[in-house]
């Protein structure tokens, strides 16, 4: 399935809009990782513990959105975006959303 940030699909024509699809998750890591991350906050540099949790949340939210699009029978998701916020301390909340559409190749009827 194509996931695009653009509103159009190059070399294809949108034939039907199926509506909004989205996926959400909130993830965190165990207490030990937060402790190590706190020490890294003192000395500086990349905090791998949080890079990892953001990556996990990003992919999980994306998969949930794709599953919703699959269930609607979509060929692509256009206008795709990620949004993040913090619902609890040290938790990563990621929302993936876009518009599910059906498409045909531009050179087809």
């Amino acid at each position: 399935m194509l996931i695009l940030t653009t509103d159009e699909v190059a070399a294809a024509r949108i034939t039907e809009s199926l509506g909004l699809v989205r996926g959400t998750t909130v993830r965190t890591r165990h207490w030990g990782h937060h402790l190590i991350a706190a020490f890294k906050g003192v000395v500086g540099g990349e905090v791998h513990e949080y890079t990892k949790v953001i990556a996990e949340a990003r992919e999980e939210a994306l998969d949930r959105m794709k599953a919703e699009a699959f269930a609607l029978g979509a060929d692509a998701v256009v206008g795709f975006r990620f949004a993040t916020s913090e619902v609890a301390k040290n938790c990563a909340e990621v929302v993936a959303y876009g518009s599910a559409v059906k498409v045909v190749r531009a050179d087809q009827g």
Partner: protein
Amino acid sequence: MLDRSSHAPEEPPPSEDELLAMAYADGELSAEEATNFSARLKAEPALLRLVAEHRALDVLARQVGLPEPAEIDWSDLKEDRTYRGTTAAGWILLTLSVSIGVAVASGEFLLDDTVPAPTRVLAGAGVLGLALLFGSVLRRRLRAIPLDPYRHLQR
């Protein structure tokens, strides 16, 4: 040039269940097939793990970036004896001091005759309740770890 084909071990063809698990994970089953397969997943833990493994591979396959110099250096550091020794000792000392400290403080409070018995009973029930809640959350997480396809992601 090396002829690798003559040394490559022959993999057995995937079983029907493996093919079904892959199709299920990829969302390629029809609605009826997916419903039937979902029912089997509830009864067959081995099948559930098969789907989880396929999903984990699929997620990892998206990570097309090459390792960065800092990541290579960081993984080397993780193998360093001094680093491993100091972090292991740190965790052991911290875990022991916290767990023994909580146990001793709880014991002293519960056995302290100067504190009214109802207060001690309530405090004991509270500590036990917290321990039970933590235990159930921990048990659930430990069971879910093998089924979490995102746990190998690094960035």
